[in-house]
């Protein structure tokens, strides 16, 4: 009994120690901070649904030809349902959307942007990456024969920048990460020498820990993190080794612990290790919109485009949807089916008359929509590669553009290149939406030039998409809180008579396409059960 208690105590100490290490590395804190926002949730996708055949002639009306709507449509069609899809836009995909040279985009307020990118260049205003564990969306990409390529999330040579740190001079990611890890490792290694730790960690564990810290933090023989071979092996030397004469490397000078901490640049290290951003990540060749296009081609005439839904009405036997031509607001028409899968975003659906129960109505009405904004900037040459040796990945800054994402395709090509010049949420996105597209772009050039002085000289053209200005979205994505989920989430997802809702807003993977896929599959699986039981 006594020894059992001792073991338990020792184990607890080890756990607390590991937890401390985890906290220092930023992972635990990050995980806790993010789960409540719905991130770092694993996908529930295992296999596409195996729906049995319904009674011949059973029909479903799908509202919205985004990822959720088209997943629902394909699976229901394959099961034998008669399916019709109504879509507001003149194209499939919804937020799965890529802009190419020659495209135009008119935002609310009437400003039209002409996309002037070179052939082969593109910009994804919406989703842009596919984590390897988002098995649902990857399944459909595979089914639709979409070629995928690696998406570089992490780049050790990209910049980490704060206007308030190191005189506004950007550091390389590898420098910040190595210095942060190195100093933390040194501090903990010192800690192992204290008698306080003797009580909580066994002698053997302590030796292992010291060795692990030396390895993790690139400490020298004296367990110090300082200028030398070890630290330069992580943060990079000032002058690299070479061949022949004058080939001796020159080690670089780490920033001191206080400087690294006060710089706040360590913010950039932790979050990129989250589940969604772990390598490998993928992207469709030629833009995320390729997935939406392929879905659209697969469904063909089952999708009717340019339909603005104005009313959704159900009774004992069917669902009837009224719609007009989205371009003219005229030519009212009706479509009816036995059942309805509605993927219209709640920001829009909350404004459409629909006879559902009070609980679902309350759930639809209460979801506020989060703001997001992205800017694509085409430059005359790929100076980030040619001058700065940055191939893909992203730089981070404390300025209101938040990041610069470098194209992760066509590396080393000699022509122009399109950079993600801003990707922001929350207040910066809301403030950007209140500005004109031109102003948003000129702001992004100003911020970007703090990291890349070449920016203004090499700028060619740009396009800025603020999601609250997107006529068919009125926002980016459903913005749940823990409290609103507890109160409304189940009511939003539950079948109401003959209507079921789906989309990222009806998922615990908000903003991600995987949320749309898994939500659609869950919705039609429950709908099918009801159909078969009815």
């Amino acid at each position, binding site marked *: 009994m006594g020894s059992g208690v001792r073991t338990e105590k020792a184990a607890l100490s080890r756990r607390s120690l590991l937890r401390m290490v985890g906290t220092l590395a930023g992972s635990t804190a990050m995980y806790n901070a993010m789960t409540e926002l719905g991130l770092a949730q694993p996908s529930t996708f295992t296999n596409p649904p195996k729906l049995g055949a319904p009674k011949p002639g059973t029909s479903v009306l799908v509202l919205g030809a985004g990822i959720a709507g088209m997943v629902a449509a394909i699976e229901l069609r394959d099961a034998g349902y008669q399916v019709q899809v109504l879509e507001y836009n003149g194209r499939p995909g919804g937020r799965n959307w890529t802009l190419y040279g020659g495209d135009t985009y008119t935002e609310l307020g009437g400003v039209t942007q002409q996309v002037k990118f070179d052939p082969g260049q593109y910009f994804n205003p919406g989703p842009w990456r596919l984590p390897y564990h988002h098995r649902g969306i990857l399944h459909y990409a595979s089914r639709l024969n979409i070629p995928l390529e690696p998406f570089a999330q992490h780049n050790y040579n990209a910049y980490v920048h704060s206007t308030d740190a190191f005189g506004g001079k950007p550091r390389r990611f590898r420098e910040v990460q190595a210095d942060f890890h190195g100093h933390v490792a040194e501090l903990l290694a010192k800690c192992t020498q204290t008698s306080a730790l003797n009580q909580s960690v066994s002698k053997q564990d302590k030796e292992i820990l010291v060795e692990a810290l030396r390895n993790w933090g690139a400490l020298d023989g004296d367990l110090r993190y300082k200028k030398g071979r070890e630290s330069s092996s992580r943060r990079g030397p000032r002058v690299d080794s070479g061949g022949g004469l004058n080939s001796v490397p020159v080690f670089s000078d780490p920033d001191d612990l206080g400087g690294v901490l006060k710089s706040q640049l360590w913010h950039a290290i932790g979050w990129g290790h989250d589940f969604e951003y772990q390598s490998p990540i993928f992207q469709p060749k030629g833009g995320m919109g390729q997935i939406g296009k392929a879905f659209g081609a697969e469904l063909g005439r089952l999708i009717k485009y340019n339909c603005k839904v104005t009313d959704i009405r159900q009774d004992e036997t069917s669902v009837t949807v009224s719609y007009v031509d989205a371009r003219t607001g005229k030519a009212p028409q009706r479509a009816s089916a036995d059942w309805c899968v509605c993927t219209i975003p709640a920001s829009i659906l909350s404004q459409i008359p629909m006879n559902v129960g009070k609980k679902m109505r309350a759930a639809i009405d209460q979801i*506020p929509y989060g703001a997001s904004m992205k800017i694509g900037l085409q430059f005359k040459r790929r100076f980030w590669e040619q001058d700065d040796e940055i191939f893909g990945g992203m730089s981070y800054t404390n300025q209101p553009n938040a990041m610069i994402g470098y194209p992760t395709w066509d590396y080393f090509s000699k022509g122009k290149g399109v950079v993600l010049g801003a990707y922001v949420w929350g207040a910066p996105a809301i403030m950007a939406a209140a500005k004109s597209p031109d102003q948003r772009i000129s702001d992004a050039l100003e911020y970007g030039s703090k990291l890349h002085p070449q920016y203004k000289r090499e700028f060619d053209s740009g396009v800025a998409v603020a999601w609250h200005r997107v006529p068919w979205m009125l926002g980016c994505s459903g913005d749940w809180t823990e409290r609103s989920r507890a109160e409304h989430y189940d009511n939003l997802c539950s079948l109401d008579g003959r209507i079921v809702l789906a989309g990222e807003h009806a998922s615990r993977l908000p903003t991600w396409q995987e949320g749309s896929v898994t939500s659609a599959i869950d919705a039609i699986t429950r709908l099918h059960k009801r159909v078969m039981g009815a």
Partner: protein
Amino acid sequence: MNLQDLMLSASIFVFLSLISGLPAGAQEFGVGAMDRGTKIPYQGGEAIYKGVCQGCHMPDAKGVIGAGAYPALAHNAKLEVAGYAIAIVVNGQKAMPALGPMMTDQQIADVVNYVRGNFNNRYKDKVSPADVKLARP
């Protein structure tokens, strides 16, 4: 515990507080979805309207129509109940994002007063930061 241990423990404690002291979700560096930390910097009703609200409600406050609509704030009878306007600004609703976390009580009071006193709205009663505080969840 000797003096050296004490100093080390103290420095580790300070270090841990520094690391864990960041407000949840206040990721400044491109976390994007997680950015709940940045605040609206504008002061005064007009500046806030132009810097924030006009993005959706438009410079003339007449709203705009797409697949759904942003309501006109101009000549809007619903604004008679000041508490309604405050609640929507603080908590968000439908397409409207929750602005409470990114604005102070004073800023929200100022912009509500600005909208209720302009754009053909002639409501005389003013709201105060204390009214806003009450509306926060």
